[in-house]
C-alpha cells in the first residue's frame, strides 16, 4: 500500500492570512519571519503547534502564525499554555511574551512555570519598554529612563531576566537578539529540542519608543560588546581577540593578543554556578553581553510526571468507573 506523501511544509504554511500590524521597522518582524522559517524544519505537523501569548506588541504574534493560537490576557500566557500542555502533552506549545507581560504583570506565572519545568517554549521579546501602551518604562528599563510615565527618570531598578529564570529553577535559559538572525534561529532550535521549560530572552528593538536600546549589540561595534556562548568552547569575543577568565569568582577580560587561550573559561551550559555568573554580566559596564545558551539541563517535566502518575494509578487501581465510586462507602437500602 502506498502511503500518501504529504509535501514537506514551508515557511508559507506557517503564515496566517492576517495583516501584520506592528510598526514598520519593529524588531518583531524579524522574529516572526525567523519563527515561520524555522517551524517547518522541526518536521512536525502544523496542527500540533500552539502559540499562546499575553498582551503587548509581541503578544499579537499568534494571529500571524497559521497554527493553533491563543491571544490571552495580560501576563497569563504561561498559565493558559500550562492548561494546553497538560490537556494534550503531545502538542508543541510556545509562549510569546514581552518584558512587561512576562516579568511585570505575569511575573508570578513566569516564575512558577519555570519552576515546574512545564514543557513550554517561552520566547520573551525584551524591548525594555511598554510599546502597546505607548512608551512607559518597563521592569527591564534602565534606571533613570525618561518616559512619559517617568519624566524625571525612572527610579526602578531593572530586573535581570536570565538571573530571575535561573533563580526560578529554569532548566533552559538562553538569550538572543532580533538582528542576529542566524543566532536567533539556532536558539529556537535549541529551545524546541529541550524537554522542559525553555526560556529564551530576545532583545528586540522598539524603534518607536525605545529605538537603539540594543544598538551596542547590533551596531558596528557589536562583536566587541557581545559574547556568543558555545558549549564546551572557550569564551572568546571581539573576533577571537578577547576572552573571559575568572579571578576568584570575578570575571575579567583577557587580551588574547597578550595572553594564552588556555586561561580562558570554557563554557559549560550544565553548570549552574557558571550560569549564575554569566547571567550577572547582563548590562555589565565592562563585560560583554552574553548571548547563547546560558544554562541547559535535563530533568523530568511536570507534564510527563502527571501522565506517569495517572498511568501508575490506573495500573494499580484499574481505570475507575463512576458508578462504583458512587456505590462505595457506607450505604444502606430503603425498600
Amino acid at each position: 500500500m502506498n502511503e500518501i506523501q504529504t509535501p514537506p511544509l514551508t515557511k508559507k504554511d506557517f503564515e496566517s492570512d492576517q495583516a501584520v500590524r506592528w510598526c514598520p521597522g519593529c524588531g518583531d518582524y524579524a522574529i516572526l519571519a525567523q519563527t515561520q522559517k524555522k517551524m517547518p524544519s522541526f518536521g512536525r505537523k502544523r496542527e500540533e503547534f500552539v502559540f499562546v501569548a499575553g498582551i503587548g506588541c509581541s503578544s499579537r504574534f499568534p494571529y500571524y502564525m497559521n497554527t493553533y493560537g491563543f491571544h490571552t490576557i495580560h501576563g497569563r500566557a504561561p498559565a493558559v499554555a500550562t492548561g494546553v500542555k497538560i490537556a494534550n502533552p503531545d502538542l508543541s506549545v510556545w509562549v510569546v511574551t514581552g518584558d512587561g507581560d512576562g516579568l511585570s504583570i505575569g511575573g508570578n506565572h513566569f516564575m512558577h512555570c519555570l519552576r515546574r519545568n512545564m514543557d513550554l517554549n517561552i520566547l520573551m521579546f525584551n524591548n525594555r519598554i511598554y510599546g502597546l501602551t505607548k512608551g512607559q518604562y518597563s521592569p527591564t528599563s534602565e534606571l533613570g529612563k525618561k518616559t512619559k510615565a517617568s519624566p524625571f527618570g525612572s527610579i526602578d531598578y531593572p530586573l535581570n531576566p536570565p538571573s530571575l529564570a535561573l533563580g526560578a529553577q529554569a532548566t533552559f535559559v538562553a538569550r538572543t537578539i532580533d538582528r542576529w538572525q542566524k543566532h536567533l534561529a539556532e536558539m529556537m532550535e535549541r529551545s524546541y529540542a529541550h524537554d522542559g521549560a525553555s526560556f529564551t530572552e530576545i532583545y528586540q528593538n522598539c524603534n518607536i519608543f525605545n529605538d537603539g536600546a540594543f544598538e551596542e549589540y547590533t551596531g558596528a561595534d557589536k562583536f566587541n560588546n557581545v559574547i556568543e556562548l558555545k558549549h564546551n568552547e572557550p569564551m572568546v569575543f571581539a573576533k577571537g581577540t578577547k576572552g573571559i577568565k575568572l579571578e576568584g569568582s570575578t570575571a575579567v577580560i583577557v587580551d588574547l593578543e597578550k595572553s594564552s587561550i588556555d586561561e580562558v573559561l570554557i563554557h559549560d551550559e550544565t553548570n549552574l554556578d557558571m550560569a549564575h555568573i554569566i547571567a550577572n554580566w547582563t548590562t555589565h559596564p565592562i563585560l560583554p553581553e552574553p548571548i547563547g545558551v546560558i544554562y541547559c539541563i535535563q530533568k523530568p517535566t511536570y507534564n510527563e510526571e502527571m501522565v506517569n502518575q495517572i498511568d501508575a494509578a490506573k495500573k494499580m487501581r484499574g481505570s475507575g468507573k463512576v458508578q462504583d465510586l458512587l456505590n462505595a462507602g457506607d450505604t444502606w437500602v430503603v425498600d
Partner: protein
Amino acid sequence: MGKTFKTIDEAVIRFAGDSGDGMQLTGGRFTDTTAIVGNDLSTLPDFPAEIRAPAGSLAGVSAFQIKFSSKDIHTPGDKPDVLVAMNPAALKVHQKELIPGGTMIVNKDAFTTKNLKFAGYETNPIEDGSLDDYFTLIPIEMNKMVTAACEGLEMSPKLVGRTKNLFALGVLFYMYDRPLESTEAWLKKKFKGKDAIIDANTRALNAGYNYGDTTELFMTRFKVEKANLASGNYRNMNGNFATSLGLLAAAEKSGLNLFYGGYPITPASDILQTLASWKHFGVSTFQAEDEIASISSVIGAAFTGSLAVTATSGPGIALKAEAIGLGIITELPMVIINVQRGGPSTGLPTKTEQSDLNQALFGRNGESPMPIIAAATPGDCFFAAYEACRIALKYMTPVMLLSDGYLANGSEPWKIPNVDELEDIPVNFAKKKNGEDEYLPYLRDDETLSRPWAIPGTPGLEHRVGGIEKAENTGHVSYDPENHHKMTLIREEKVNRIRQDIPALNVFGESHGDLLILSWGGTYGSCRSASETLQEEGKSVSHIHLRWVNPLPQDLGELIVGYKNVLIPEINMGQLLRLIRAEYLVDAKGLNQVRGRPISTSSIIEKVNEMLG
C-alpha cells in the same frame, strides 16, 4: 430500672467543644449511624477559621449540629434540643441557642477555674444555678470516666483524655437508641495498626453508652423511627464531595478528560483534594500558583478539549474575573465553582453566605453574561455540577456553579443515582472545515448559538482565538462597531437560549395565592420547611425554588404575578430580590440575614405571618 421510650418525630442535637476535642468527628459518627438506622437527616458543621485557636478560648469553639427525623426534612434545624458542651467556652457560645427546656450535657471536668475565666464566666454556670431554671443540666465527669474505662491500657493520660468525645457520643447513642457497631468498625479502620487507640476509643464509647444505661439521669430514651424515604440505595453525602462526583460523572458521560485547575481556599479546597485522589479516572489536577493561574489553565485546557473546571470562593472569583471574561469572549466550555463564604474581603472564611450572586451576575468588565446555576442541598451539588458541565458543553460557554459553605460541609442521606440514567452529554469536536475551504470558528449552531470546538491537533482547522472582539463567523480580530454590537447581542442571546434546557418550575403549593416564598441556592431547605409548616397551618403560601439564576426560567414571570406577596429570603442583603424586582416589576420583599449560618425556618415563618398580617 423503669426506663421508658418516647417516640418522637425528630430531634436536633449539637456537639460543641474545643477545636481539639474532635467535635466534627463525633458529629460525623453520629451522622453515619443515624443514616444507617434509616432516619432522614441534615447536618451543619460549624468550625472556626483558626486551625489552632488557643485551647479553651471562645474563638476556638467548634460545633456540629444534626437534625434527624422519621419524616422528610430539609434543614439541620434551628435550635438544638440537646447541647453537648465539652468545655465552658463551648457552653458560653452555644447555650443561648438551646431551646428552652433543652438538655445540656457538659463535661464537668473541663469546668476548671482557668477555663471558666478564659470563657468569661465569673462563677461556674453548672454550679451557680443560673442554668437550672431553663434547661435540664447533666454534668458528667467525662475525663474521670474515660480514665476509669481505659485503666490498664498503656497509654498517656493525655491520650486517654482525648477519647472523651467518644464517651459523649456513647451517651447520645444511648439517649437516641443507636447502635455502636458502625462506630466500632470505623475506629478499627481509621486507626488500623494502632491497637491501643482503637481499644481506648472503643472503651470510651461503650463507657458512655453504659453510663447512660446505669445512671438515672436518663430515665427517658428517645426513638426516632425510620424515615419514609423513596426506595433505593442510599449513602450519606456532603456538598463538596457531591460536587466532585458530579464533575467526574460528567467527564465519564461526555467522554472527556477532566482537567481541574485550582488554588487552595476555604471552603472549596476539598474539591481539589478529592479530585486529586481520583487519578485512576484520568483526572488531571493542577494546583496553580494563584487563582488567576488556575482559571487561566482551565481556559487553556478548555481550548485543548478537556472538561475544564475550577472551584474557589468569592475572593478567588474576584481574582479570576478578567480571565472569566476571556472564557466568555472565546466561548469555551468550562465550569467555575464558587463555594460562597462570608465577605467582603477575607470576611468569614468558614461561615456560609449567599452574597456572591451579584458578583456572579455582574462581576466582570464589559457586557459579559454568564449562566449561573445554584445547588439547593448538599446532595444536589452532584446534579447541579453535572448540569453545569452539560450546559457548558452544549452551549460552549463558561458556567458558574454557586455552592456555599453550608452546602459544602453539610450532609444528608442521598439516594445513589444510576449513571446510565443521567442525561447524555454529547460532544462533537469539529473535524472538518465548515466554510468554503476554510474553518469558521464562530459559525454558530442555529438552536444553541454555540460555536464549533476544534481542538489543537486537528489537521486543517488551525485557528486563533483571543480576548479582542471577534468578527462574526471568522473569529478574526474586529474593531468594527456594528460587529461589536451584534456580537454583544449574540452572547446575551446565547445565554438566554439556555432557557430551552430549564424544565418548568416546580411550584410547591398553589400556583397563585397570598404569598410566594422564592428562593435560590442553599436556603432551599429553610424555605421548604417554612412553607410546609405554613401550609399545614392552612396558609395560602407556596414555594418556588430557582436552580438557574441566569437565565431566569421562562415561566417565572407568569407565575410570580399570581401571588399577592412575594418573599425572598437570602443570606445577603437582597441580591436576588433586586434582580426579581427589576426583571418583573413586582413588589417583592426580602428577609435578609448574614450571620454566617443558614436562615432559620422560624424566622421565615415569622416574616410570612407578619406579611400576611
